[in-house]
């Protein structure tokens, strides 16, 4: 897996870019999209106007308390802008890398069997081009003829070439990648500007980012809280007036800005952008933020057995002779029958014989050997050497072969074959005409660590379902060994679609990974459909995420990133609201201590003066945004525990922590403010 190098958090170029972008975001037309920060900006503006007015009237100096309040309010807006610009900057840095690969290329377009050179940008859907070794593929498309090795490093960061060929599930090619051997004919499937690369660039840049449903709901909550606090502050004026205190606007505004949820309000969009960015770092492209959010909610994961749970190929693990046959003779026969078998299974038999009995592959040509390749009709393969006719294959076929040659079938054979099948293995019987040697145990090799991963997923509350074409016996054994929660055996592509619909009917969210054209309907139906980049164009179009590494286990990282995104939002919201308790204890006594000196006993932090108390709260409120930028961009730590455990941990950390931290922070700032005689 080639993980994109994660950009350092405070990468100087990004910080510089973000600083200037942050200035543009002061534009009210931009700011109005974020109601919480818009209120802060209006408040800052109001205090500034009063300040200027008072200065010219001669009421105040430019070094006074109000000026500092005004400055810190502007900083609050600026810090939030900066956080958003930082998140966007990181995306832009990735986009720039991608853009570099999109150079002007010439394409050999094929028209009525004529080859004409045209610029890549003039290619439209359904045009056909020829790409030869060393040339860049001019656009997204489907291989319709030929086979070639393609370097896709531009997209995936992986330098090892991949094979692309017509037909089958490895036919999609991406514009900007390079053919390094042979040639292919490609039918273009995307118009310029709509290519995969274009979409990828605009996604990571976050230029036209749509707010996700949960983000919208959270914004409504934050806007509602903001309105409540506006009511509180507006009504506080007459209440104070009744007690004989005429509150000044800057002080009321300071209270308002401290109370409204500026921390989460300022960081909300940065969290969303950073979530997409983290996916890209894992080489996954989400076509929408909605899909990332849905990933956190997934209840059921559909996994293909082959490639996800097991290594792609079965391996020989054991030779089981029958009757009086020596294991060594069985191994010898099996090796002979497999020497010319280039399938991974065949090779694994040769290797096992060599490892267990030190049998070396012999030069067969010298021994006048004739190989019998595997065919779907005979369902066996083997070799004729001299008089020997050695065959290996499916039990029923070999038995038939041996019977035809006059063999009596050993009674124990059936038992061995069935035992292997029940344990999830594939039995291959080896015979030499009428003589049955025994059975080769071919086994699906479960990927290392997959059991632990399923346990993690179970702890997160997710059910895993294995999909396989195997018979139920084999499937059950593999399911048992791998620790998957459920399985569907003898599955067809329609099984996936039906299973997804069944789960969704119960209200569950389903995620699946697919690559083939026949996966496309299921990918489209799934709430989170991850298409392999190496898969077909149809699959890539149907899914809402694309895994550039084509690694089927990637779905688990995607789910964790989705959850991390939601947790980060929840944690900062809780923290932000919990913060208000301390701010009240700082500001309320300070506001009224002149009229009611007894309120001094609510000044639990023993802040130096009323002015320093208010100023410290405002400064804390601004600085906490900066302090939390790393958390917003990286996301909070996620551990796959049960919901109850995660909840109590995070409540303690961000809820209780959110109550306590500002008491310490405001007190510390007050000490500095007092020491510097700022107020």
């Amino acid at each position: 897996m080639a993980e994109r190098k994660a950009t350092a958090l405070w990468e100087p170029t990004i910080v510089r870019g973000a600083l200037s972008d942050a200035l543009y975001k002061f534009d009210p037309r931009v700011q109005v999209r974020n109601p919480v920060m818009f209120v802060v900006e209006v408040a800052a503006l109001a205090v500034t106007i009063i300040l200027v007015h008072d200065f010219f009237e001669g009421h105040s100096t430019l070094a006074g308390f109000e000026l500092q309040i005004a400055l810190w309010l502007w900083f609050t807006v600026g810090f939030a802008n900066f956080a958003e610009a930082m998140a966007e900057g990181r995306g832009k840095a990735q986009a720039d890398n991608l853009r570099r690969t999109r150079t002007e290329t010439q394409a050999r377009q094929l028209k009525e069997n004529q080859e004409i050179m045209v610029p890549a940008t003039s290619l439209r859907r359904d045009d056909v081009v020829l790409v030869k070794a060393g040339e860049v593929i001019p656009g997204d498309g489907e291989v319709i003829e030929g086979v070639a090795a393609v370097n896709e490093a531009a997209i995936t960061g992986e330098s090892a070439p991949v094979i692309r060929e017509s037909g089958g599930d490895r036919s999609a090619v991406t514009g900007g990648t390079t053919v390094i051997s042979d040639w292919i004919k490609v039918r273009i499937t995307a118009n310029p500007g709509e290519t995969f690369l274009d979409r990828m660039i605009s996604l990571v840049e976050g230029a036209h980012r749509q707010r996700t449903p949960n983000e919208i709901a959270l914004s409504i909550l934050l806007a509602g809280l903001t309105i409540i606090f506006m009511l509180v502050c507006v009504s506080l004026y007459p209440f104070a007036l009744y007690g004989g205190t005429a509150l000044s606007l800057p002080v009321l505004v300071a209270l308002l800005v401290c109370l409204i949820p500026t921390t989460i309000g300022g960081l909300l969009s940065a969290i969303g952008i950073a979530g997409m960015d983290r996916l890209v770092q894992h080489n996954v492209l989400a076509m929408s933020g909605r899909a990332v959010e849905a990933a956190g909610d997934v209840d059921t994961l559909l996994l293909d057995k082959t490639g996800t749970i097991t290594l792609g190929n079965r391996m020989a693990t054991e030779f089981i002779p029958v009757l009086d046959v020596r294991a060594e003779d069985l191994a010898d026969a099996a090796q002979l029958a497999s020497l010319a078998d280039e399938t991974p299974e065949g090779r694994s038999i040769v290797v096992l014989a060599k490892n267990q009995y030190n049998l070396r592959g012999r030069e067969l040509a010298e021994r006048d050997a004739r190989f019998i390749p595997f065919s779907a009709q005979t369902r066996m393969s083997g070799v004729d050497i001299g008089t020997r006719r050695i065959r290996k294959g499916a039990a029923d076929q070999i038995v038939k072969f041996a019977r035809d040659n006059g063999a009596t079938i050993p009674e124990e054979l059936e038992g061995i074959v069935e035992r292997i099948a029940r344990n999830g293995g594939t039995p291959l019987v080896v015979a030499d005409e009428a003589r049955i040697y025994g059975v080769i145990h071919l086994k699906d090799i479960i990927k290392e660590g997959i059991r632990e991963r399923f346990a993690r997923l179970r702890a997160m509350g997710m059910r895993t379902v294995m999909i396989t074409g195997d018979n139920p016996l084999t499937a059950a054994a593999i399911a048992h060994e791998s620790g998957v929660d459920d399985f569907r055996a003898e599955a067809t592509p329609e099984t996936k679609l039906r299973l997804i619909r069944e789960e969704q009917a119960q209200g569950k969210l389903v995620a699946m990974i697919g690559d083939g054209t026949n996966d496309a309907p299921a990918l489209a139906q799934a709430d989170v459909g991850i298409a392999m980049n190496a898969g077909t164009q149809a699959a890539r179009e149907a899914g809402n995420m694309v895994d550039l590494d084509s690694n089927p286990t990637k779905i688990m990282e995607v789910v964790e990133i989705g959850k991390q995104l939601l947790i980060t939002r929840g944690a900062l919201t809780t923290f932000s609201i919990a913060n208000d308790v301390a701010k009240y204890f700082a500001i309320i006594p300070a506001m009224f201590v002149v009229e009611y000196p007894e309120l001094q006993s609510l000044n639990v932090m023993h802040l130096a003066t009323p002015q320093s108390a208010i100023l410290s709260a405002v400064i804390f409120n601004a600085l906490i945004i900066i302090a939390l930028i790393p958390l917003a961009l990286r996301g909070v730590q996620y551990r796959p525990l049960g919901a109850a455990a995660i909840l109590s941990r995070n409540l303690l950390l961000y809820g209780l922590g959110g109550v306590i931290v500002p008491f310490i922070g405001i007190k510390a700032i007050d000490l500095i403010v007092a020491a510097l005689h700022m107020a």
Partner: protein
Amino acid sequence: MSNGLIQVGLFSVLVTAVSVPLGLYMARVFTDRRTFLDPILRPLERAIYRVCGVNPGSEQSWVQYAVSMLLFSAVGMLLLYGMERLQWFLPLNPQKFGGVAPDLAFNTAASFTTNTNWQAYAGESTMSYFTQMAGLAFHNFVSAASGIAVAIAVIRGLVRRAAQTIGNFWVDLTRATLWVLLPISVIGALVLVWQGVPDNFSAYTQVKTVEGTTQTIAQGPVASQEIIKELGTNGGGFFNANSSHPYENPTPLTNLIELVAIFAIGAGLTHTFGEMAGDRRQGWALFATMAILFLVGAGSAIWAEQRGNPQFAAMGIDQRESAGQSGGNMEGKEVRFGIVDSALFATVTTDTSCGAVNSMHDSYTPLGGLVPLVNMQIGEITFGGAGSGLYGMLVMAILAVFIAGLMVGRTPEYLGKKIEGREMKLAMLFILIFPAVILVPAGIAVVTKAGLAGITNPGPHGLSQILYAYTEASANNGSAFAGLNANTLFYNSTLAVVMLFGRFLMKVPVLALAGSLAVKKSVPPSAGTFPTDGAIFVILLVGVILIVAALTFFPADALGPIVEHLVMIHGKLY
């Protein structure tokens, strides 16, 4: 101390014991299952539907449900207004009371329709028996029944899957009245009569006192109105002195019965919710949340009142509790109830939207008086008003789930229903309207001549009086902080509007929420689902309720009761 523990303990045990069977019974009633009262009530119910032209089989969408509820309330309010204005013309008026003044009649009509029962009048010198029984007591039943109906509709919204309807308002209203409120009231009234509460149509009795002066002894159909006053969390007393009057609440036993009656339906509905949701632990979680907040409030109020006034202690006045005296701050309290029963009553009546009082909250110590105020400011959801307590708590649960639910890494859901933008909008509307209709008019009242005219004590205590008045009106409580001269055009009209807003502007979003939840599919729970039936959720919910209320009302409270308390410690009283 031990007295307090025993009384609060006994009360808590009784409430728990009553709430479970009552809650399960209500679940049967509102899911149309058989109950033991069916043989008597079914024919009556059918007759009512026939007369009113209700088709009990047809269900309503949330809009139809809300329109039915609003229409019913509007007509009921108009009828009550007319009855008050014309009572001189109507029967059962032995004292020959004239028509009620327009602004007072409007205020009272709004007050009883909204289950508030704020009384800017003295019952025994204003209202005829006919008005009391046919007007006020009628609303005592139906305003409670309409609250229960809305709560049931919200439960249906949460537990139904992909449904377009949330029940039928007319059916819910009828069944809540016939199956729940009436039978309990009949038995309760008889018990009260046994304890000495009068129930007659006699004219007031004139007696010569020992000192030789004449005294008028007011009476009437008291017992029959008394029990529904508590059970329906109405709180509108037959007499001006409410439950401190010996004819409304003569003995410690009646006091206990009234206390249990106030909590019965609110507590019971949590179990109705659990039962209808198919998971009783969900109901117990809400019950526990409410119980914790109630106990904290009751403990604080009893502690503050029993401690008395530190200034008195400094003067050498004995305020200690002993066999001979209740000790503590007895100003405005009845001797037969003492500190504990008074402070407990004050807590219970403001935990719900009842507002009946057996002592004068105005005379409490600042902190003792802060407890009822805060109880109302958290939205009267600690058992809460009949129905309104549960739906208020459910909105808070949805808010808590939304804020903290994200922290388990899933988009928030409650009982398998995803909480999305629309639900958040409606929940925030519900939460926002409440402080808006308290803080804005209170802010106006403290700086206008008409508003300030009602205050009877200077300084922070005056602010407390005004704040309390608008809080109780908005929360549909109706308990008076006393002291405020509220029978003026300004207060009658502003409080009436606040009561109507506080009831209906909050009920409509709640019904919309029910409708919006009902159409959703339900996600089955898994290990990754936010658990809403355990201790963590209870703690979280308590925290969210307290923080939301504290953030909203701390500044106002700080300038009222809190500063009053601090100033009192330093030797100044208002």
